[in-house]
């Protein structure tokens, strides 16, 4: 190999020293990775940030910086915050869906219990456990339906 320079030093057109802070995390075969972080954070900034991190965590940090830079390039207005926002919304929607279904399950189980408790004389009564009854017994849960 004529030039053993990492992607960062190639990009900055300088020599790549043996203790180059970038080279373990920005190999020459992935120029895109450094180009992204350089565009968003600036090369020297990335170097400074990496230096403030213990060595065993630097790879994770370099990868996280690359991801955030990539997301910012893809969405120049919101970047990774757009992703957080939409994921958070998904979590909320899923929680509401789950609560609805769990309420329905509870309702059905309640119906079953009433039928099983007094199978003979109370058959007519079990049919009177309607959703209205359930809702008045469980106002908090069923408010999510509305």
């Amino acid at each position: 190999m004529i030039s053993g320079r990492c992607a960062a030093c190639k990009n900055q057109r300088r020599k790549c020293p043996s203790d180059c802070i970038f080279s373990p995390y920005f190999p020459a075969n992935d120029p895109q990775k450094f180009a992204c972080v350089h565009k968003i954070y600036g090369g020297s900034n990335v170097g400074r940030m990496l230096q403030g991190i213990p060595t065993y965590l630097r790879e994770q940090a370099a990868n996280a910086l690359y991801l955030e830079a990539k997301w910012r390039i893809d969405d120049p207005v919101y970047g990774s915050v757009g992703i957080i926002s939409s994921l958070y919304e998904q979590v909320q929607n899923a929680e509401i869906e789950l609560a609805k279904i769990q309420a329905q399950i509870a309702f059905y189980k309640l119906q079953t219990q009433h039928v099983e408790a007094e199978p003979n004389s109370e058959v007519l009564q079990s049919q009177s456990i309607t959703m209205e009854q359930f809702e008045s017994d469980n106002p908090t849960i069923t408010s999510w339906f509305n």
Partner: protein
Amino acid sequence: MGSGNSPCASCKLLRRRCAKDCIFAPYFPSDDPQKFAIVHKVFGASNVSKMLQELPIHQRADAVSSLVYEANARVRDPVYGCVGAISYLQNQVSELQMQLAVAQAEILCIQMQHEPSVAAAIPNPQQIMEFQEQNNNNNELTHHHHHHHQYLNFAASSSNVIHDSLSRETLFGHDMVS
């Protein structure tokens, strides 16, 4: 830029003249020096300026808000920044989808039990869940325009940072300044 000629927070920090058309001034008022300081620390003033210049004016306020949020996240967690929160939320979504599939299977079972005429054809819960899984590939929870399952392939396998303020108010209502 309300108070006449007083320099905005950016020009104060950068020690330069705050021009009338200063790109930072509308978003970094002089009464909040921390806001620009943290964005400058993580992204650098010239990069922020470049990013703002490439955006139409009506989008710049949101861009600044999200950059401030990211900068704060990066300062709080120098290793993972926002990626920590994304990893955590992705796990939550997967977990909830699993719980939903189980609950949907259970309710199908129960509903079929209430219909004696189809009792003979009741699939077992396992079959229901497999059926649900096929359906879930088409429903809104998994198909978001961001294709969230592909966000993280290699980073942050253990999301050891849980960000406590992810409410919409924090994201866009007011800027997070530590």
